């Protein structure tokens, strides 16, 4: 007689075995490292050799006295605002055009999606040339083009403008991600049943009003997920800035600050503190979204 595994165990055991490698890996490499990073952030270790001592989170306050840090936060916020708004608007607009039925839609779709396949590092190098800030007579890229079109007045400092430089830095990111947003919206548009639009039209709604009052309100989930995806990309931006400007103060952002603190300044506590701030900022975006989507699942 063979011993039989109780039925209840038989129900959950295979499932558990199946997911346990992933639980272990996520536990170690995500939550374990988050813990380790946070521990380092409150360690008060501003060099690599001091012993560990708990600083009660003082470094989260002290960091703001670092001359480079407030600027990095300002840059990240400006970049995020321009990038997220720009990519959402441009993406929605492109999707709207597609939805209206354009000839060769498939090829346009591919063209707009393509930039997403390029890495930020590669497109950054190209945009570095395009956004050369020299005056038209010795510029390359867009400023040179403006000069040759006798539009010299349009030439500008791009990302080297001390106030609005980070807005220019968002242009390549918008170029790169708006195709993706377009794809999200297009799927959303296609998901709105034709009957609803018909009904609105029968009631005398103009085409604009159909989109304004019927289609877009149904796309709130799409907008929200696009917002989250763009928002967290933008807060963590590193490679794009690195490719275009390198580690210069004029385009300093938190992710670059982490790199500089850990690898150049040899200050692990500051690096970990910045990484924790980044995590918190992203969590601020993601957690409400998770709560909201779990609730939406339940009501379904």
């Amino acid at each position, binding site marked *: 007689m063979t011993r039989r595994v109780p039925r209840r165990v038989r129900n959950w055991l295979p499932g558990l075995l199946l997911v346990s490698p992933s639980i272990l890996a996520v536990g170690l490499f995500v939550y374990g490292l988050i813990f380790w990073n946070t521990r380092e952030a409150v360690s008060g270790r501003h060099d690599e050799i001091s012993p560990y001592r708990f600083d009660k989170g003082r470094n989260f306050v002290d960091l703001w006295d670092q001359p480079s840090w407030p600027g990095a936060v300002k840059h990240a916020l400006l970049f995020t605002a321009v990038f997220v708004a720009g990519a959402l608007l441009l993406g929605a607009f492109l999707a709207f055009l597609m939805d209206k039925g354009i000839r060769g839609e498939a090829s346009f779709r591919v063209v707009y999606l393509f930039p997403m396949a390029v890495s930020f590092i590669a497109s950054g190098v190209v945009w570095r040339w395009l956004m050369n*800030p*020299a005056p038209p007579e010795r510029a390359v890229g867009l400023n040179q083009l403006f000069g040759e079109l006798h539009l010299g007045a349009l030439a500008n400092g791009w990302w080297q403008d*001390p106030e609005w430089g980070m807005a220019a830095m968002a242009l390549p990111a918008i170029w790169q991600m708006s195709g993706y947003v377009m794809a999200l919206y297009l799927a959303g548009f296609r998901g709105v049943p034709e009957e609803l639009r018909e009904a609105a039209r029968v009631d005398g709604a103009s085409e604009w009003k159909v989109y304004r009052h019927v289609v877009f309100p149904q796309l709130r989930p799409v907008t929200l997920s696009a917002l989250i995806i763009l928002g967290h990309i933008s807060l963590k931006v590193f490679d794009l800035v690195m490719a275009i400007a390198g580690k210069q*103060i*004029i385009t300093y952002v938190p992710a670059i600050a982490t790199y500089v603190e*850990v*690898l150049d300044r040899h200050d692990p506590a500051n690096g970990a503190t910045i990484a924790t701030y980044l995590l918190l900022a992203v969590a601020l975006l993601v957690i409400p979204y998770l709560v909201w989507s779990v609730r939406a699942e339940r009501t379904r």
Partner: protein
Amino acid sequence: MAVAAVAVTGALAAAGCGGGSTGSNDTSEVEVFSWWTGAGEADGLAAMKADFEKRNPGTKFTNAAIAGGSGTQAQAVLASRLQNRKPPDSFQGHAGAELLDYIKAGQIEPLDSFYDENRLKAAYPEQLLQQITYQGRIYSVPVNIHRSNVLWYNPGVLKDAGISAPPKSIAEFIADLKAVKAKTKKVPLSLGAQWTADHLLENVLLGDLGTDAYNALWKPGADWGTPAVGKALGDFGEIMGYTTQEAASTDWQGAAKAVVDGRAAFNIMGDWAYGYFTGNAPNGLGKKLDTDFKYAPSPGTDGTYMWLSDSFTLPRNAPHRGGAIAWLKEASSKEGQDLFNPKKGSIPARKDADRTLYKGYLEYAFNEWNKPGVKLAGSFWHGVNASKKQHTDIDTAVGLFLQNKDVAKLQAGLVSAAKNSGQ
């Protein structure tokens, strides 16, 4: 992100190595870690490697070079290897205070007995040894010397501006910049990304303060708040007014090229620019000294050699300590340095090298380095006298200055950078 990367490799390495090796005299192999992958320097390394293999037939040479200008990428990789206690047998580092973090962390060994055994203390200039000594001990073996304080200029543009000779002081320099701006349509002083402004800063400080006061700035407890420093920073700010608005989007090559192409009058950059100017395409511009460009000591620094040096170290617990010692012998030898330096475009740190091998600008540099009575000053930007913390903090202060142009804030930033230097 970087923290996470370091942590991941850390965790993996901890899992991977069990016992951990202690220093052995294993000479079967040597892994040499450097960032010499560019044109010239890679050839120089290959020449030294060939000589090393001839003299040490039993030792396998592994070249662990990592690409990336002035070693930024390489140093990130090195940091994680050292933290994982998997050091290479010998690694490249700028001689001087840049090695402080490794010294304090006990990651590299002092080399005094190595210097004594090989009678190196007589072979290197005394001032050089003084400037790389930390708490009475020496931790690295310099292979080459580069010069930071070189003024490159375009003779044609200077002629158009009515300037007959290169400026001899900072005041003359400012007057010349003004003349170029008034009389030609050229850029008075070409500049590149933020770090080239740091490079300019060290040259203006040296030119204005003089060698002794400049060197004193890097002693522990030095005062950066003095009116003399304030005046030098004021001059720095004024000089910055003659640079280009697009500086941040060019590296040093673009800035240096503007001079030999006749688009700019002056550029202050280390002597690696010479190899770039005169070398053949694709790595050089194929330009001629005297017709396309000329050089002079940067203003106010004649008689002083602001030096920087690549050196090699002996990591604690190097897996093949014997091999590492053999490599350090090669790197410190007259033969090794004379093989490496003509190719790299630098001069040997040793005093007894073969002067006939160094031509053109290098002949000038060789003679200046070995001239009796020459004063040495360390280049802070290139690792000689600032810890990495102070180095980064000065860079930040300069970066902020490029935006707000506020000299008082720059000085305050430099004062606190010195205070927090940890030296």
